[in-house]
């Protein structure tokens, strides 16, 4: 790394605000994904002013800048694929303002997701996006990846909860998008920024919505001997116009792994379970719960249990939210996939996952946001075995390929990052990608922000499937 840049960075952030020794950099070459990439240095700004100055230095030295929250991401978003400076927001972790009456909070990007909810819980409020990593992941990271979570079904993803942003763009300009109002005039720049995976700018301040905690919450565990029955339950619940706040499915193998960790009383011999939650006003919830129970039973649920108290409820959710890690007990490494499918294609998709598992001889567990068709196959492998790792990636690609074929997408909530850039042509045409690149270049003209992410660097994946250009049903009349 350029010694002058390093010196300037240390002058700006102090010696304890810059890491550049090899033994430190080795600890920033990973995140929660299976990807790795080593940065040239890691910096810890403490204010927006620090970040602005950081951009000036990076731009002057033409050095890549990559944002990082807690490093819990699952697509390598926080890794410096082409080297450069990792900007850790871990020390910008203050809640700047809480506006109770208007249900808003202004936070720095390093605030941990569940810490915000904990800080406003006594006011009867919470921050709704709840990724499984919510006890560690940061809101800045959530904004960059447009994170979802089990309660996405009723509450929406991160973008639905972000009202305004302060950010520094690739050009080094400090901007403020959006407003505390629900709809601000002009283009929705906040909307386009959320989920840009650190390629448009680095967020320095976030205004979020706080949602009232529901008056009542009921969580129900339905146990099935067949995946089809569980799927049909989900379809029917939706058809009846009930919107559960969450609707999760785990397959039998995953249930057993999870039960070993949480001891929540998950059945060890089930083929699938549904974890369904309804919330709202007390009467409404009681009513919805009756309906949901009825549908479960109608579709041959072997047993339906309702969590009796908050402790039981937390235990059930602990099982679901820690499913990845719990599965990780079984093998040295795992690769969590993130695909989207139409709900109706679930049984076929799970069959396909089973085939892929047998083909490569790799165990695959399935966790599924059943309500919104977001599938998370967890592929176990031993990272010491190079072949197993390659097979795990191939297996994942085949599953994603299938998801796309049945009308789904390559990622639901984990982001593209450096994991799925090569799969982008599966769902986007060249025109789509060109348009995205043009938008990218407006925010990040020099390409120094999180380079090597999102856009496919080669067309390697084109061999599998390339989405054709859309055709008009009848050719346009020639002038």
């Amino acid at each position, binding site marked *: 790394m350029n010694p002058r840049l390093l010196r300037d960075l240390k002058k700006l952030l102090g010696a304890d605000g810059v*890491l550049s*020794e090899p*033994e*430190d950099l*080795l*600890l*920033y070459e*990973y*995140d*929660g994904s299976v990807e790795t990439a080593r940065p040239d240095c*890691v910096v*810890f700004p403490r204010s927006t002013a620090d970040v602005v100055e950081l951009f000036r230095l990076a731009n002057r030295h033409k050095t890549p800048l990559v944002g990082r929250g*807690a*490093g*819990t991401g699952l697509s390598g978003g926080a890794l410096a694929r082409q080297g450069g400076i990792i900007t*850790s927001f*871990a*020390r910008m*972790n203050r809640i700047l303002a809480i506006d109770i009456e208007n249900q808003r909070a202004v936070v720095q990007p*390093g605030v*941990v997701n*569940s*810490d915000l909810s*904990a800080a406003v819980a006594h006011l009867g409020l919470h921050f709704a996006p709840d990724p499984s*990593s919510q*006890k*560690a*992941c940061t809101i800045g990271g959530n904004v960059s990846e447009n994170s979802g979570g089990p309660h996405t079904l009723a509450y929406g993803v991160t973008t639905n909860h972000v009202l305004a942003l302060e950010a520094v763009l690739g050009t080094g300009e400090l901007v403020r998008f959006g407003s505390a109002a629900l709809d601000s005039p002009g283009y929705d720049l906040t909307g386009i920024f959320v989920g840009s995976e650190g390629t448009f700018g680095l967020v320095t301040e976030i205004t979020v919505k706080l949602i009232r905690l529901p008056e009542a919450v009921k969580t129900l565990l339905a146990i099935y001997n067949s995946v089809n029955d569980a799927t049909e339950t989900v379809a029917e619940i939706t058809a009846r116009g009930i919107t559960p706040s969450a609707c999760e499915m785990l397959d039998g193998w995953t249930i057993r792994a999870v039960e070993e*960790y949480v001891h929540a009383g998950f059945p060890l011999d089930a083929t699938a379970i549904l974890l369904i939650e309804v919330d709202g006003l007390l009467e409404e919830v009681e009513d919805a719960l009756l309906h949901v129970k009825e549908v479960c039973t109608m579709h041959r649920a072997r047993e339906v249990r309702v969590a009796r108290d908050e402790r039981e409820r937390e235990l059930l959710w602990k099982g679901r939210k*820690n*499913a*990845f*890690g*719990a599965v*990780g*007990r079984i093998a*040295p*490494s*795992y690769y969590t996939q993130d695909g989207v499918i139409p709900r109706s294609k679930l049984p076929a998709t799970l069959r396909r996952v089973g085939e892929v598992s047998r083909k490569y001889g790799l165990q695959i567990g399935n966790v599924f946001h059943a309500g919104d068709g977001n599938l998370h196959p967890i592929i176990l492998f031993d*990272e010491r075995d190079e072949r197993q790792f390659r097979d795990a990636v191939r297996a994942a690609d085949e599953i994603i390929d299938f998801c796309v074929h049945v009308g789904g997408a390559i990622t639901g909530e984990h982001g593209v990052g450096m994991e799925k850039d090569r799969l982008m042509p599966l769902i986007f045409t060249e025109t789509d990608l060109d348009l995205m690149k043009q938008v990218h270049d407006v925010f990040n003209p020099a390409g120094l922000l999180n380079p090597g992410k999102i856009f496919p660097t080669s067309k390697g994946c084109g061999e599998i499937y390339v989405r054709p250009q859309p055709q008009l049903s009848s050719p346009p009349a020639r002038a």
Partner: protein
Amino acid sequence: MPAKTVGFTAIDKPEYADYARCVHCGLCLNHCPTYRLWHQEADSPRGRIRQMELVDQGQMELGDAFVTHIDHCLDCRACETACPSGVEYGRLVEAARAQIERQYKRPLFSRIARDFVYRKLLPYPARIAAAARALRIYQRSGLAAAARSTGILKVLGLSDRERLIPRIDSRFFSSEMGQTFRAVGQRRARVAFFAGCVARVTFAELNRATIRVLQANGSEVVVPQNQVCCGALPAHAGVRDVARDLARKNLAAFPIDGFDAIITNAAGCGSTLKEYTHLLPANGSSGDHDRAMRFSAKVRDATEFLDELGLMAPLKPLLVRVTYQDSCHLAHGQKIREAPRRLIRAIPGIEFVEMQQADQCCGSAGVYNVTETKASLDLLALKMDCASETHAQAIVTANPGCILQLRAGSQIHGTGQEVLHVVELLDRAIAAPR
């Protein structure tokens, strides 16, 4: 230039099977006190595990940086509670420290101090008593007051550390050794009491209170004579040979089959006593491992035991507002959270208020407050903020180390809160006049 140290030696090392369980998901980060202080990967559980892995694979030197970050760890094991993959972090960090002890040359002063404390002092109850008597002269003679008032401690940078030094008891827990204390009323259990090492000269009253509460609830209590330090401090510091010797001595000192349980009032000791099999693994040649398994199976924290047994002694009301600080080695090491809370709530008149972050370390962590004083005091400040927010008159906890630290916190931050062990609170409720 000396050769760089890479790789671990064969025994007492972080094992692949243990560290490979870490899938670097990062869920531990926000639960780690040192990550919350400094926010860097190297001082997080995930980062420390990666450093062990890198050293094991020869990609990182077992040198200053590695030692610094492993030393910074409190070994509070909050990460174990957070970890969905079941990484036994405590076991890993203790093994890493054993490697440091074996392969790394610390500065001279540190070597002398460690050698004195872990090898010359802790294993010998008589020496601890002698050292305590000397310290007591300092504390009682006016020397301590003089040292404080002249400001010499401040000049030497020792004023905060001096506050963390326990007050030496007037009457040591020594005449009780080898004695049997009869159950009040019908005998419901027969237990052996683990008296601790430093606790015998600094927490003698707590030990007596524990015995009284056990007796009052129908337990006959025996205090085996030849018991020694549990080995927790040496084990946490990586001084495995000493810890192992102490474990063997305790296995010999406690006639396991004669008791329903072996009781400790120190969460830190309990955690180690329950993990003697880690010190004496199955591959050892002697029958130690089997005996350790049987021993550990009988070990109970005093709160765990009383909660299981069910309180029988009539409790008189205590009109006091209290909060509870989870001792790390009880909540994270032994997974016991509810038992102490149930016992506190069982006392009539008590107003129990939970504090925020009750299961975050107070910074005591064995000798951490002496070796890493700055970090320890920073954590203590955070803890005292949470404790004072509750407006509790007393902070109740379950480990002598935490009691010392919180007492210092109450003084330094002027919260005026009393700090008590759960069993001391019970003892008061049993003894309180109507």
